[in-house]
């Protein structure tokens, strides 16, 4: 193995990669698959990385892309695992079910967005990153980030209209 640097990288950034994957995929097993793919891809090319690699940015991008890629490969979106959290739609008796269904559909539509729009949407809305940081991660300008995000939102709202009424 390496001189311990690779292990350190994995230990320090596992959480970041897994969390991104969990947010996109909503499934722990698939998230672990993403985690594996991301780090093993780095290991295969370990000798090519120099000391200048900005690992946070690199791993964010890789995690988002791999997650979306894996989601597209899946024939059907995995059912969201049960979580402890506050439901939004509490006024209707079936609020929890309805919310879970909506979120599942959001995930389904998310992976069908154009790649760039999907990436920006994940980073902005799922990861909650500010636009300047997203712009740095994706190597583009802020205005481009905004355009992609707006289009993603519009498109998702259009596709999910009946579930959003």
């Amino acid at each position: 193995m390496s001189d311990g640097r690779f292990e350190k990288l994995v230990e320090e950034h596992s959480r970041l990669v897994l969390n991104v994957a969990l947010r996109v995929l909503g499934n722990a097993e698939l998230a672990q698959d993403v985690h594996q793919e991301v780090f093993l891809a780095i290991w295969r090319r370990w000798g090519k990385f120099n000391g200048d690699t900005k690992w946070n940015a690199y791993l964010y991008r890789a995690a988002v892309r791999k997650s979306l890629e894996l989601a597209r490969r899946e024939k059907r979106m995995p059912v969201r695992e049960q979580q402890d959290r506050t439901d939004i739609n509490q006024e209707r008796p079936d609020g929890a079910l309805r919310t879970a269904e909506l979120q599942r559909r959001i995930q389904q539509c998310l992976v069908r967005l154009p790649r760039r729009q999907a990436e920006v949407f994940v980073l902005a809305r799922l990861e909650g990153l500010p636009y300047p940081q997203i712009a740095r991660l994706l190597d583009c300008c802020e205005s481009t980030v905004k355009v992609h995000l707006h289009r993603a939102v519009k498109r998702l709202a259009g596709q999910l209209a009946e579930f959003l009424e």
Partner: protein
Amino acid sequence: MSTHEKTNKLLVSFALEELSEAEANQVRTHLSQCEMCRREYNRLKTLLDNTEHVGQLTTDENIYESAQQEVFETVKNYQPKPNLSVPYFGRRLLWRTIMKSRITKLATAAAVLMIVSIGVFTSKPVYGLTDTIEAMEKIHFIHVFKYAEEGRINDEKWIEIDSNGYQARFRQESNNILIIDDTDKVIVYRKDKNTVILYDVNQKHYQWIANLGKLFRTLAGKGEKGSIEIERNVSFENMPAHRIHLTEWNMNVYIDPSTKLPIAIGPYIVNYENPPADIFAFDIPDGVLVLDKRPGANSIEDPDWMKDDELANRDFKKARQALAEGEYSEAVELFMRVVAIQPMRNWAVFWLGKAQHYLHQDKAAIEAFSDVISMFQKFGIETPYAHLARGLAYAFEGLYEEAKKDLTIALPVMIQALRNPKIAKDFDYADDPLYRDRNARQREMIENVCVMNMIHRLRQITSQKMGEDLSPDSKVPEEVIAAWENWYHTSGEIQVDFDYQPDLYIPEVPASEKDLCDRAVKFLLQGEGDISLLFSEAKQVQLKDYSVWSALGLGLYKEGMYVEALEAFQYAEQLEEKQDPEHIYGPITWQGHVLDLLGRREEAIERYESALKRYSRSSMYVEYGNFGIKIDDKWIQKRLEEPFDRN
């Protein structure tokens, strides 16, 4: 724009909390009054609120630990497997993914069982075009040549293929000429003239078949019926082979059953060995004249033979025009001048024969057509259109036996063309010396009446009357085609109708469109003319050629007239939708470029996304050599990330 429209555009920004307080207040005020906007805003808000809770994080801390351990375990056992098409880890991951559910485990087991049992009980898979397509993807070099009569190698070409399947470098050598195109420069060594000429790739570019893989993919897309016929397990030169007959070109391709690669394409033999070292290099021989025609090079006066060639090219163009306009005597004179300098220029020889035939100089016409037939027979290529022309010339000269021989050769191809109009292309080209000057729309018009024109020719050589009232505006009725086929199978007798003049449909080339084409290209290549005037004229005549609109767009871009350039590229897009949809991503991307230059980034992004959607196949690209731009999916993706910049 109304308040409603303005506010509606701000709804997403409002929902994302991007607006200033003043703007947000405006939106709130409008929302209180507009139910439609309120509903839309509520949808956006619901979406965004629910998105925050999509994919909540796990509370199980073990997941992080186990994920790390899995990585370390796999890395410890890692062995690189470079020959696998799927990365080692990917395959392991795939298996892991498949095996995670009971249902997929059973399904996978069943699939494996089925594959094994198929393997046991059936013979090896039947050859299909996709086998050749896949095999072509691994090719790096193609070696192509013909055998001359005495068994020598002739017309030899070496082609290097890049990772996208397109030609990277090209080398062609025959008795009199050596050409090397290494995508940086083009070297033409005229051995017969002891001269080397250097060109820039934007001035001259040589290629054999641009993307051989694409040819087979296209054929596969068209299916086995109609455009191709596959005959499996035949032989080629005493070797086992599959034969693909390309009906459109009346040509055979032979496939090696073991490698699935072509071993012969038409008259060419095809190999795939690595070339000798430095095959694409060239040392200028001592004592040759070197002409460097590249931009910026010191120019010396062209030698006489080159000036003669230029003259011949100009005369050839005038001669075609004269023939099309019925000025046969002038056409004969001009074609004879061309042939005196370029005796092997087959179309010059052929059309000389046509002009002479129209002047009732059939002895001379027969000689011309015979020259053309011989030129191609040396390479094993048949020219049924030339046999038709010579057959008619023989008939009008009273040599009926000779006429019958030639027309009997042409007849079956002419009948086949009724079902496969593309076979008729050479016949239409032979009857239309201005074909190469026509724009895409006119060529399409001619192609649409291929069958009608062929029936006219058949009527002339058979004296049969089927298809008397055909019109270029409607399709030839099936019963007419069937009647001709029936006649051919039951009779097929040649009988020239000397009084019948085939009423071939050949559209006129509108002078203004043609002139515009020439001037647009001239501006782009040489900077001559007024592009803004050209643009106005193109709009006035409602130019219908997408390629000219693209050229105008590029010229306007060059001059910094971005608004006009945008308009030109939009016209190009509209027309290219019908005429060449496969490459429509080109003008769409250019619209993105000029929109970026105009500071309209949002619209530019929309154009790039649209271009990417229309980019149908990897390894395609459109090259704009004059601007050093090659538009493919990677280029468009980059434009989505950063705006286009002229620098």
